[in-house]
């Protein structure tokens, strides 16, 4: 095995940046699992919707083509992330009402929820493949920000897009941590994820908490979708698939149902994937990343931090 040690620094950085994106998406999987014990496989479409909505508003509708600078850039970036977040949050609540709530009302079996999740994911993905929405190819995301170096870390340059991702993700994670541990709605989410019956007996409105959980998970998934657009300069109907499965893997790695676990799992998976490039080669990155899933399930089924939602 030839290890290219010169790559360690830059790939370490890439790992953290990509990993924070995984972490942001993983929150949606882990929170929904916490309250419903359901793997929401349609969360990859929720993520995609965020990127696509930001593309519609800033690319198609506003027609921004020239990079912005200064205050205009900050406003535009904030707008992009908010449009993505709100679109995905709405998408996630629609998904809950359309694909899961009717099953809950009829007392559906665990397996039917899972099948419904997979069906909903394919439905949304192929819906956006249609020409009246996004079409089959990749679409170019408006180039709001000229890539430029921000500073150096680990002996390699960090550009402004990397910095944007890390800053946005950190803000999201801190905000979520506060919501979960310090607000009334956060407390009800924790209660529901620990004991549904006890939560009901405390007067928690189960349906409202569930939809709020989808909304919050969708919100962060949408921020991630918009960040993806800004960073990779394109969006596509199938853009959710790989990041979605990676984020799901990250959630399992950190301990599904555990919010801090999703954060840790995301960063760690980003690092594992990128560091594998140093010694094994870039074409193996996905193989290595996805082998994490069976390994965790065999050797540490509850993940690194265990199944527990709050702090």
């Amino acid at each position: 095995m030839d290890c290219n040690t010169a790559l360690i620094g830059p790939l370490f950085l890439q790992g953290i940046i990509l990993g924070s994106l995984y972490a942001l998406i993983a929150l949606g999987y882990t929170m929904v699992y916490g309250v419903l014990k359901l793997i929401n496989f349609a969360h990859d479409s929720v993520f995609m919707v965020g990127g696509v909505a930001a593309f519609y508003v800033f690319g198609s509708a506003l027609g921004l083509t020239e990079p912005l600078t200064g205050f205009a850039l900050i406003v535009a970036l904030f707008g992009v992330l908010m449009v993505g977040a709100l679109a995905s949050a709405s998408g996630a609540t629609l998904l809950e009402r359309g694909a899961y709530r009717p099953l809950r009302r009829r007392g559906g079996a665990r397996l039917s929820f899972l099948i419904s999740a997979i069906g909903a994911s394919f439905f949304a993905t192929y819906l956006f493949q249609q020409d009246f929405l996004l079409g089959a190819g990749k679409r170019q995301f408006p180039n709001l920000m000229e890539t430029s170096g921000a500073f150096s870390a680990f002996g390699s340059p960090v550009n402004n897009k990397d910095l944007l991702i890390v800053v946005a993700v950190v803000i999201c994670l801190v905000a979520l941590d506060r919501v979960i541990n310090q607000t009334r709605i956060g407390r009800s989410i924790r209660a529901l994820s620990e004991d549904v019956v006890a939560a009901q007996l405390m007067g928690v409105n189960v349906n409202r908490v569930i939809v709020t959980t989808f909304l919050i998970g969708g919100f962060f998934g949408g921020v991630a979708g918009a960040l993806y657009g800004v960073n990779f300069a394109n969006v596509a109907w199938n853009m959710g698939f790989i990041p979605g499965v990676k984020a799901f893997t990250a959630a399992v790695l950190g301990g599904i149902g555990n919010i801090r676990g999703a954060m840790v799992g995301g960063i760690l998976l980003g690092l594992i994937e990128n560091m594998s490039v140093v010694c094994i080669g870039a074409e193996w990155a996905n193989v290595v990343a996805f082998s994490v899933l069976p390994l965790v399930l065999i050797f540490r089924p509850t993940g690194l931090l265990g199944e527990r939602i709050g702090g």
Partner: protein
Amino acid sequence: MPPDNALLELEDMRVHYGAIEAVKGIHLRVEEGEIVALIGGNGAGKTTTLRAISMVHPPAGGSVRFEGNELRGVPSHGVVERGIVQVPEGRRIFPSMSVRENLEMGAFQRRASRKELHDDTRHVFELFPVLEERRKQAGGTLSGGEQQMLAIGRALMARPKVLMLDEPSMGLAPQVVERVFGVIRNINSEGTTVLLVEQNAHMALQTAHRGYVIETGEIVLEDDAKTLLGNDQVRKAYLGEE
């Protein structure tokens, strides 16, 4: 005919689990200020009855009236809002939340102010000083007796009009059972109506004003608690006497 001033009244209430009828049309009445005991063996339908009243597993037929209003169709959180609060079987403490957070969960539906929360928590700590010592500890690390006290304290935080307790004596040492029932009497004397479900018929009937005996989903006896304690059938079936 029962008087009209019942606070909580079940009429012909039936509860199904799939094809099985677990509660077969029971009548039960709780008046304001009373302690009513519902006693019976394992699987008789006691827990099912309480879950039905809380609308966690809503009844399939009959009626559940509280303060004269039908509760069927009301969601479980609406039942808590109206003032019926349950201490569930097995206590169901939130294991990773601290004692204080568990208590605050009890006041969840009230949207209590900081000050109210503080005062009510104080009150619970006065009833159960051990909870104050443990206030920062995770609920899951408490002993069975402490968890039972926490479960009762948590329910009191909701300021219930009717407090329903499901097997509060289960798995507890005799002295702890005595303590718990003492507290139940105190709570009642402070004005809270109590519906008590127990396998420990002796303790329950000594504490209650009136009692019902449930067997395989049907009420088979109903009387003053003292009379039930002296009833031959009850003595044989539930008090282990010949």
